[in-house]
């Protein structure tokens, strides 16, 4: 009989994946308020409200200091460390017109052009 994977062995398997933070229970617990705020950006009015007063908007969702700082830095790596999920963070990034290529380049620490070139080369392998 197969033994069901425990949460710790699942987490170990996730943690062995290079360059990747899997959105598991740990991130879910850490990032709920941040993700809830980002989910609210499906609404145009909410995106406008955030743009007009970021601090007040973060207050309303009771974000912690780490999350607020990561938002101020416009830094996806820090936002993921603060429990953010990429699908919701993308809605936040959309407020500033940041593309998924720009977000990818930022996380890789390379230019947007270099990131796009890397994607094009992936087709030649």
């Amino acid at each position, binding site marked *: 009989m197969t033994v069901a994977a425990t949460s710790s062995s*699942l987490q170990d*398997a*996730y943690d*062995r*994946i*290079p*360059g*990747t*933070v*899997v*959105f*598991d*229970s740990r991130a*879910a617990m850490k990032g*709920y308020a941040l*993700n*809830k705020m980002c*989910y609210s*950006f*499906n*609404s*145009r009015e909410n*995106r406008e409200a955030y743009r007009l007063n970021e601090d007040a908007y973060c207050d309303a969702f009771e974000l912690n200091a780490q999350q607020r700082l990561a938002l101020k830095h416009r830094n*996806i*790596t820090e936002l*993921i460390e603060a429990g953010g*999920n*990429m*699908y*919701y*963070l*993308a*809605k936040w*990034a*959309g*407020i500033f017109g940041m593309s*998924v*290529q720009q*977000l*990818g380049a930022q*996380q*890789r*620490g390379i230019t947007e052009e270099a*990131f796009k070139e*890397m*994607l*094009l080369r*992936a*087709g030649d*392998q």
Partner: protein
Amino acid sequence: MARIIGGIATSHIPAIGKAIAQEVQQQPYWKPFFDGFNPVHAWLEKERPDVAVVIYNDHGLNFFLDKMPTFAVGASDLYRNADEGWGLPVSLPFPGYPEMSWHLIESLISEEFDLTTCQEMLVDHAFVVPMTLLWPDGRPIRAIPVAINTVQFPLPTPARCFKLGKAIGRAIESFNEDLRVVVIGSGGMSHQLDGERAGFINRKFDITCLDQIVDDAATLSQMSVAELVLMAGVQGVELLNWLAMRGAMTGSVSEKHRNYHVPISNTAAAVMILENDTVVG
């Protein structure tokens, strides 16, 4: 009785929706991708399905982390799209087929797939983009959305999604109406938006997947979710939708069309048509 006339798997990258809205399909960047849909349009014109069962993943339009179903089935007569926050044009609504939805739900739950039923359900780009790619001139078809959680880990295993697909296949073919049904698996292929590995694409694994989806899906479905993330990237787990589509088909299928193109946005994109060799048992 309803009959599955084929399965189609296709990528659903939001940028595709923007390209369609901007009518840039024939520009050099897009042409190799969009030209891959000409044979799909010809196939749909010939086969004329009445109903599409669309297996997809919601990215935070209808479902949030407060209530996250592993499997959810729509049971509405109309499915609306809405603002997803990053500038995609909002699509016209899609007609549903609640009687058939409820038949699927009853059949699936009797087979112990304890899913969430949704009499209201917003459908996001993962539903809209495939429908628009397949029927660019409008959609003479009713749709039933089936959503699989790919946001909050733990995700359902590939094996479970494959089994869900098999149960969906049996449910469709036991619906007592004379209908032609196409099953759509949305998403993929390899891609990763987040982390230092952002931009990860695995062409070799994708090609293996495309081959195994046709003739060895049972082996493919034995991967763990962690292995799938490792090989296909975090968002490449959308292969779960493809496996469920494949499960709805019979054991033996014929590949009628395939197009694989890298990159579209951050993603390896593909489309594939499968036909059943025999009737679902």
